[in-house]
């Protein structure tokens, strides 16, 4: 079973066709790359997957079940979380609080549990404190894994850019989702930070058994990291395959470099 099956997805904005008849399959426990020139529809695809946009046609299946008309907030519990192109952290909250927000939503609660939680929240200091302690413990583990402990009490808006990106990644991880959509996770990172990110992402795939889908522009990063890649241009998939296949593909070269240049390559 595939992590994600994208079938015949089309999307348009008042006549502008952002995505046309796109079909992709993303296998589980792999790192999948989505590349292509700007405006190719990659982020729009992420927005469809995360429930922000409704496609004009097509369907999206996650682990065999359709997630097409789900509200964005239902997806993390179903197993899908994401980061954003322009880092969207909770600016005035601390790093720890950012992680906690994701952790808070993890527990599935039925009505009885909800009422019980309220009661504890309001009247039982003991229960309340122990619940909070548990959450803090989990948050700390995550912070450690992402090497963010020393910044736990820093406000998200005060973090340097590279750490902000890491924090956003940690937050998406904290939701417990098995599939992470990462929108340009390496953008703005220096070579050292990019290398560290590669290691981190591989660890997430191998140890945490996550499926990662990346939108990226850093070719070296993408080719060195991804198991499989799809190339989009003008909302259409123009190539799919392993990194070496993609690199040799003349259509891809043309899309990136333009017709005349590609002849030189």
């Amino acid at each position, binding site marked *: 079973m595939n992590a994600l099956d994208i079938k015949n997805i089309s999307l348009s904005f008042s006549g502008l066709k952002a995505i046309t008849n796109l079909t992709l399959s993303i296998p589980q426990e792999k790192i999948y790359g989505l590349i292509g020139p700007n405006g190719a529809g990659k982020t729009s695809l992420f927005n469809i997957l*995360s429930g*922000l946009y409704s496609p004009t046609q097509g369907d999206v299946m996650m682990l065999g079940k359709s997630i097409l008309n789900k*509200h*964005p*907030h*239902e*997806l*993390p*519990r179903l197993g899908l*979380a*994401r980061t*954003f192109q322009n880092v*969207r*952290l*909770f*600016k*005035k*909250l601390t790093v720890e*609080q950012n992680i*906690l*927000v*994701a952790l*808070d*939503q*993890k527990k599935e609660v039925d009505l009885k549990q909800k009422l019980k939680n309220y009661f504890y*929240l*309001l009247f039982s200091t003991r229960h*309340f404190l122990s619940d*909070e302690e548990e*959450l803090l413990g989990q948050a700390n583990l995550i912070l450690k894994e992402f090497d963010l402990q020393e910044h736990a009490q820093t406000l998200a808006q005060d973090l340097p850019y590279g750490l902000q990106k890491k924090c956003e990644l940690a*937050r*998406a991880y904290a*939701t417990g989702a098995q599939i992470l959509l990462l929108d340009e996770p390496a953008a703005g990172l220096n070579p050292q930070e990019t290398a560290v990110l590669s290691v981190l992402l591989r660890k997430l795939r191998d140890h945490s058994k996550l499926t990662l889908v990346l939108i990226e522009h850093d070719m070296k990063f993408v080719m060195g990291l991804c198991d499989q890649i799809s190339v989009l241009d003008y909302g259409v998939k123009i190539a799919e395959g392993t990194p070496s296949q993609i690199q040799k593909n003349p259509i891809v070269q043309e899309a990136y470099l333009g017709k005349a240049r590609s002849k030189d390559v």
Partner: protein
Amino acid sequence: MSSYLLSLLSYAGINIILVASLNLINGYTGMFSLGHAGFMAVGAYTSAWITNWAMFNHPTWMLFWFPVSLLSGAITAGGVGFLVGLPSLRLKGDYLAVVTLGIGEIIRVCILNFEPLGGARGMSDIPHLSSIIWVVIFGATILYLLWRLIHSPYGRSWMSLREDEIASQAMGVSSLRYKTTAFVWGAAFAGIAGGLFAHELRYLNPGIFDFNRSFEITLMLVLGGLGNFWGAVISASALTLLKEALKPLQEITRIDFRMIIYALVLISVMIIKAKWKWKRHERT
């Protein structure tokens, strides 16, 4: 202590509850509700109606019926808060403000046209069941509950919606659930404040709960700082006392100078805040 002073302190306490409850909706969740006086009205009238009934039927049990009436006011106000919260999702910023303002007015107009509650004449001779003790009991409890809510997953979810609603939803926070919950709690607490108010003033009239009242509460909140727990408490108490101090001025001229002063202070504070933030931004 004179009864006048105790009464004044009661009003301060009532305003603290009102401002703190609005803080939940506007400050922590980042919405903009301008109809808070409407929730207060619902609580006030519910509570007064119940004590009125109780006075006739169980006059010796008022010590029991008074808090019950307050809690009933909380429940009805909370119910209204829920109804207000539902459409609030589709409405952002300015639009939500106007709609909540309208709802506050609608509540007032409904009460105005509802004869069993006294209509335009209002309700009078409400028993003086409120006292500084009750205000302190309920006030402290409400502040405690608010504190707990804010420092719990609820508070974090509310704040995350305020910071970035889209990212928040992407992390699993249900905008619908948390926004309506904020409205329910905020409205319920305002309802209790309304009940206490009714039994302190001993007279109710729909005109008390108009937009000016909502504006006053909002003003106190903004001056104390949106999302600032103790700021809300301090500004509510300080401004209530200040308002009393300025009363003689109004009585002389029949004109509400206080509103002019309030408005000027509000505008100045907003501009100063903006300029200060801009300077800070420029430094970095």
